[in-house]
């Protein structure tokens, strides 16, 4: 399949399936987590055609990383739950496993203890059958979606870092790298202190 054909296929999928499914998934998640405390926001969105083609074109050891991107890229729909405290992250992850069928669960942390960076809980989950109705063309319905659970501070850091520093073509100076690491450390520290405060001040952090 050429890049043009892949783009055309994904555009059809994006319009006919991913957009309506992302909207339904967001509503489904909101209903499921309606009674859970300390959730700042829940969102779901389809991967944009530009981002999809960018990802599909990634190389690994000189060859294309994905031989069948339309079936292999599992985050064509991405959902996110942003919670107040780090302890909420684990409690919400348990709820996710109660209601969804995962094929992957990852705790994202920096590679070594002396580094600071993004932290979060990521899942690859089967798209729930409740939202996949017959009006959506079956050939365009992805099997999986990605769900991220992160704290407010990790969410804020991740968004700004993605906008400013997470560019494959950009070489950051060592000073810029230190600034990025500094903000990550600040977010990590804020999470730590708020978690300690929550443990002290709230009788129950997550019911």
């Amino acid at each position, binding site marked *: 399949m050429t890049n043009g054909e892949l783009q055309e296929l994904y555009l059809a999928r994006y319009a006919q399936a991913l957009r309506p499914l992302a909207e339904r998934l967001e509503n489904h998640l909101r209903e499921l987590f309606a009674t859970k405390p300390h959730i700042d926001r829940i969102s779901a969105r389809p991967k944009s055609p530009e981002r999809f083609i960018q990802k599909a074109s990634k190389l690994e050891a000189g060859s294309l990383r994905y031989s*069948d991107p339309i*079936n*292999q890229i599992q985050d064509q729909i991405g959902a996110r739950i942003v919670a107040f405290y780090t302890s909420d992250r684990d409690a919400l992850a348990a709820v996710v*496993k*109660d*209601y*969804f*069928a*995962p*094929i*992957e*669960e*990852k*705790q994202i942390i920096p590679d070594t203890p002396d580094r600071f960076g993004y932290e979060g809980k990521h899942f*690859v989950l*089967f798209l*729930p*059958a*409740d*939202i*996949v*109705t*017959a009006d959506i063309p079956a050939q365009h319905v*992805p*099997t*999986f979606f990605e769900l991220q659970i992160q704290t407010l501070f990790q969410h804020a850091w991740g968004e700004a870092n993605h906008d400013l520093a997470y560019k494959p073509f950009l070489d950051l100076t060592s000073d810029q790298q230190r600034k990025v690491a500094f903000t990550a450390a600040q977010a990590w520290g804020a999470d730590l202190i708020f978690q300690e405060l929550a443990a002290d001040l709230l009788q129950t952090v997550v019911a």
Partner: protein
Amino acid sequence: MHITTLHSYLVHPHNTPAGTADTPGATIPLSGTLFHMLNAVFDKSDKECTIPIRFLMSSEGEQSNPARDLVLAFLASPTLKAGRSLANRLRDCTTMKSGLGLLFLMIGKENGMAKLVVSRFPAEEGILAEEAKTTLKIEFIERIFMKNAASYKAALYQGDAPDADFWSGFVVDRQLNQSSDQIANYWITDFLASDFKTTSKAGTRRLSIALREATHAAPLAAKQEIVAAIALAKGMFGKSLSIVSFLQQLSLSDEAQAAVIARLPNPDTIGETFILDPEEFIENAPLAMVELDTGGIMLAPSDKFEATFERELLDQVTHKFRFSTVGRVIDERLRGRRP
């Protein structure tokens, strides 16, 4: 789609002398009576295997599953040797209770689509009578398979994209003398390292919300049936069922069944199997209520309503009932609004 590869293996229980060796197997020719018999099993698997299952991720949360790895390896290279790895896995999960079995691995490939049917037939007993000119030889045989071709276990996987399609499949267990929702643990959990595709809480939530919402929308007679079904659900807590089997086992009328199904977000989910979770059920359908034309209202926890209020039909034509209950008053209050 026709069978393009067909292998068979004699699978012994693992805790027997024969169960320690490599599982013996043979490739079956794609013609003849046996082939036609198995081709029928292969063809009807689309209709017979109705319970959706999914492979479980590894305990470290990675996208890997030992049974799926063997399925993918066999699909990529459908040799007798590759199939033996699956047969050996079944042997390691087979106990004396499950007994000797004959495993068939059937693959069909057409236009980029692949279909794999994994089917196990149990060994049965029989008597062989061989007639000679003047004698009759009677022999007891312990290794008869497919005596009853409707008694078997099967799993079906199909698709055109190994990365996406082969994480889930469908199973059936025709050996159990129960409803099609019941399936031997060793087949789905141990051998296939899988679970129902619908989690216990997700399926229970779907059913209990549909029941609750149907009691708001359905006609009165259907409402009464649905409230009774909610009250009787506790008898099924912890059991595997589908929404359709739940409704049928409780003998709900067509009208009441239609009222419940209409409240499902996706009616296609009525056949999906899950284990009924008590906590989730009670959370979503906590109270059953009956309101009479006299203005009287009775309210009780849904799983205790029928036991709390005795219902007596007084007049079939006017549908008049007498409800009665006996208890000690522990609270009494006025409410500002109708509940």
